[in-house]
Structure formats: C-alpha cells, structure tokens
C-alpha cells in the first residue's frame, strides 16, 4: 500500500465528493433500483450527474432534511436503494431522530450522504463545519459509518454501499484533497488498511486525515521514527483485529479525524483498546470546541490537525512513553 500512496504523492488534488458523484452515476448504471434524493444541494453534493442521467429516479425535496431521509426510508421500503444527500451539518445534523426511527429502527438500506463535513469546509464557518456526525451516526444500531480518504475511494465506497443491505452513512469533504489511492487499492466495508507499515507508533486515521497522517509519517521517517499508518474508511463496524494487532506491536496509538474526538474515531478506538488491548492513546481531532471561518489549511494548522502537528504529537508521546518505560 505504501507504493500505491507514493506513486501519487501530493500532486493530484480532487474533492472527495467528486468520487461520490462518479460512483453514484456508475451505481445507477449498474443497478436499476438505485435512486437518489437531494435537499437543494444537488451540484454541491455531486448528485447532478446522476440526476441528469436518471431524472425519473431523482427526487428534489427542497431545503427539507427531515423530509429527505424519511422520503428515503419510504423509497427503501419499496425496494429501492436510495442515496440521500445534503451537507453533513444538516443531514445528519438536523434529522437525527428521523434517521434513527425510520431508517435504523426500520432497518431500511438508505444511504445518507453528508457532504462538506469537517473543519476544512473553511470560510463558511462553524455552523457549516460538521464535526459531530461520526458520533451521531456511530451511536445508532444497524448504521454503518464510512469516511473515505479520497475521491477514488469514495467512488468505490459508493458502489459498495449500493450493494450493502444496511443503513449507511458516508461523510464527504468539500475541499480538493490529494488523491492517495489508486483503482487497485482494495476497499471493503468494515476493513481498515495499513497504508504504511511501521514498528514504533500506530496512527489510525480516517477521511481527509489519512493524508495528513501519511505526511506526518514521512516527516517522522526523517527522524528515523517508523510510524504505521492505518486508514480506517469504515468507522463502524471498526476493523478491530487490525487495530488491535498494530497496537500490540507498537504499544502507542494515535487517532486522527476531522471531527470531535468524543464519540468519533478517537472514541471508537479508545473504547476498543481500553477493553481489549489497553494501550497508550492520543486522539487528534476537534477537542470539544467549534471551528471558525478561515482557509482550510489555516484551520487545520490552528486546530492541530495538520501533518506537522501530528508529527510533533508523535515526538512528544514517544518521549513521555519512553520515560514512563524507564520508570521516570
């Protein structure tokens, strides 16, 4: 997997949501029962290609996110596989109860797509920077939670969701971010992948933060610190065995996500390790606060979500970890 990543490096940028748009179009071509609904953000969420190709299978609900997901539940009840999209701040931000009752408790295969998630939405500010979606969706029985790392993976995830019989949530980001996988990179719902093997520290990252973690690993390699980067595109169900195995090997784990660490990937990994493989853990993400307006890079830096900060955190942790090992 290292080679795949290095083959691309940093040069090619594309918003993750574009991959969703392509994947949805392909899913529509492959499966007659795939339909879509949107809440007045068809182009933003990249549903427009599907809507243009399949106008009779597309529903525009207007600015009405509660209706969006419940119409989705109704479509699913009649045998459709509905993808329903908006900004993550509104769906699942506004319509959690409807998702809980009509999708999860009803166990309907609705695919909730939350675009523009995370702090990197940038100038729109705190109202639109959805940071709690992973926690909201992860707590729901039957729900699968996905956060692909680039547009190529998002397309694969979309096709996988079209075949998955469960309720799914997928978070997408607005900004163009580096493409770090290829068509050959494996993707399966429920699996995490070692994108870079290492011995000393494990970083479990999801979504856009996988790129930052890989960059941090490069920085650390210069200081001869070998970091294992695990990309977890599925946050629920988490690939427990892979994470436990790596934690056993390195004894030191960081998590990285563009969202609240409470209840997010950080929360999920903390729950897993404290029960099954107690390991020193440090969670990188938003720490019980809201964001603010700014350019994406500026915000990632300010809130400690960029590669430099991750690398610094690893240095700091290794230092305290080794001291503790020596009994200091």
């Amino acid at each position, binding site marked *: 997997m290292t080679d795949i990543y290095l083959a691309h490096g940093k040069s090619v940028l594309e918003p993750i949501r574009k991959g969703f748009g392509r994947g949805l179009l392909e899913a529509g071509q492959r499966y007659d029962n795939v339909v879509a609904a949107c809440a007045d953000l068809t182009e933003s969420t990249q549903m427009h290609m599907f809507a243009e190709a399949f106008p009779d299978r597309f529903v525009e609900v207007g600015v009405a996110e509660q209706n969006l997901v419940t*119409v989705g539940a109704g479509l*699913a*009840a009649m045998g459709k596989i509905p993808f329903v999209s908006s900004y993550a701040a509104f769906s699942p931000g506004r319509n959690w109860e409807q998702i809980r009752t009509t999708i999860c408790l009803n166990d309907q295969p609705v695919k909730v797509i939350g675009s523009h998630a995370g702090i990197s939405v940038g100038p729109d500010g705190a109202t639109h920077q959805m940071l709690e979606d992973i926690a909201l969706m992860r707590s729901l029985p039957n729900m699968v939670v996905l956060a692909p790392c680039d547009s190529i993976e998002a397309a694969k995830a979309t096709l996988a969701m079209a075949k998955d019989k469960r309720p799914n949530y997928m978070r997408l980001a607005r900004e163009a971010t580096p493409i770090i996988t290829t068509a050959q990179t494996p993707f399966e719902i429920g699996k995490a992948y070692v994108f870079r093997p290492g011995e000393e520290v494990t970083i479990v990252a999801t979504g856009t933060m996988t790129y930052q973690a890989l960059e941090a690993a490069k920085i650390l390699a210069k200081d001869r610190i070998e970091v294992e980067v695990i990309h977890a595109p599925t946050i629920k169900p988490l690939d427990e065995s892979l994470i436990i195995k790596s934690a056993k090997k390195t004894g030191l784990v960081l998590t990285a996500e563009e969202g609240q660490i409470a209840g997010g990937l950080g929360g999920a990994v903390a729950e897993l390790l404290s029960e099954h493989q107690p390991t020193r853990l440090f969670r990188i993400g938003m720490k019980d606060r809201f964001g603010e307006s700014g350019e994406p890079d500026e915000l990632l830096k300010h809130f400690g979500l960029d590669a430099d900060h991750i690398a610094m955190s690893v240095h700091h942790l290794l230092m305290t970890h080794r001291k503790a090992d020596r009994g200091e």
Partner: protein
Amino acid sequence: MAGPKDYSIEELSGIAAQIRVDIIKMLEEAGSGHSAGPLGLADIFTALYFNILKHDPKNPDWPQRDILILSNGHCVPVRYATMAHVGYFPISELKTLRKFGSRLQGHPERLRLPGMETTSGPLGSGLSQACGMALALRMDSADHRWVYVVMSDGEQDEGNTWEAAMLASKYKLSNLIAITDRNNIQIDGPTETVMPLEDLHAKWEAFGWYVMEIDGNDIEAVIEAYHMAKAIVNQPVMILARTIPGKGVDFMEYDFHWHGKPPSHAEAKIALHEIRTLGGKIKGEHQ
C-alpha cells in the same frame, strides 16, 4: 384476499364494536397506552382493512398489496386489533400488547410484526415515508397500488408534516391518500389551545391537496370518501375525518385526559358494557 370482500355497513359496524372491545381489553391488560385515539379510529381502520385495502393477511408481503402507514404510532392498538380481526394473527395475541417479548410493541415496529409497513411513534414522519413509497410506485409504474396514511391532527404541529405536504403536491402524488384523525385533542389539551391548527381545510388546499371533510365515525362516509379520493387525479388527497376521541365510551368521549392513559379494571368493565350494549341501546351479549 386479492380485493376487498363485501361486508354490509351493519356488519362493519359490528366489527368496529368488536375492535373497540379488544382495544379496551388490550389497554386494561397492558396497564399503559393510549385510549382515546384508538377508540376514535376504530371505524376508519375497519373501513380500511375490511373494505378499502387490497391486502392478504395470510401473505403480508404480497407484492401487489396496498400500503397502509400509521403515522401516529401511539394509536397502534386499533391497528393491532383490526389486523387480528381481519386474520393477520390470532386475537388471543392482543393481550401481549406492550409485554416483554411481544410482537405488539408499545409503538409499532416493522421488523417485529408482518404487515406493519413502518416503525412509527415519533410524530410527523409518516406522510413523508408515504411520499417516498408513492414515488417508488410511480417509478415502477405500479399504478394499481395505493399508499394510505392515517395521521393525527396533533402531529401537524410537526414541520416534517408540511415538508411532506409540499413534496406530495409537487410530484402530484395522486396515488397517496391521507386521512387526518381530526379529534381535536392532544396530550396537553385541545389542539386549538395547544397550537391552533385551523383552518386545516384551507391549509391543505393551499398546499395543493384535494381536501374532503367527513364524519370519521361514519363507516359508510369513510368508505365513500376513499372511493372518491381514488378518482382524484394529479393531486394527493387529504380526508379530514372528524372523529370523537374515546368514541363508544361515554366517560372517555371528548376528554383529552384519555389521550395517553389506559382504563383501570373498574373503568374497563364499564367501558366494555357500554360498547357491547351500544350505550344501553341494545342488550349486551353477556347479559
């Protein structure tokens, strides 16, 4: 049952009375639950399951069936009782309502009971699910199937209801027929005190729906309204059905305090006697 069987209005009234008896018994046995709404809806549910709906109790997933959504899930005792009487499951199972391990959950769950099309309870989302279903039928050109929704007046406080109202109108979902149980009560009191809903007729009309107003405790009127609704093209239909909450039990009728509580054993005894004797007009079966 490929199509509705012919029952006379008298027979249907008798069935509705039996359903009311079972509602009282179920709630008494359960010790919790809602009384007024289910009693008020007994005539509408009888009309639906014994006349209007195309369904098969022995094959609940029959692909050609009509869909019935109960949006105000708290009124589910009337649906359970009607489903038992029409043959979905044994009437004896009704006494398991709200008990551990029962298929008859306090609020209905799709995955637990065959024939229960959706899980409901949290208000205001039945109509929008019905919109999704009606849209799916339209996509599949299944013009011979209908989506029926039973909803409450109180849940029209919910914004989600009106989001769905707009969508159904936009897509001209004439395969969607909703009925509002206009019984004028909700938990905190009369609807017009808690949050005024009127002019409901004008509201639904303004949202692009074809609106009818009927006596929802008159089975013949309910059946007629549904037949007329099916003849409306290019518009979804809203039947505003005036019902009496607690219908059939004198001390419950019109009283919002009976919205969310069951009868005690003593109250149930009086209620059952009243329903069985049609308020003293006839001799009860056990007298």
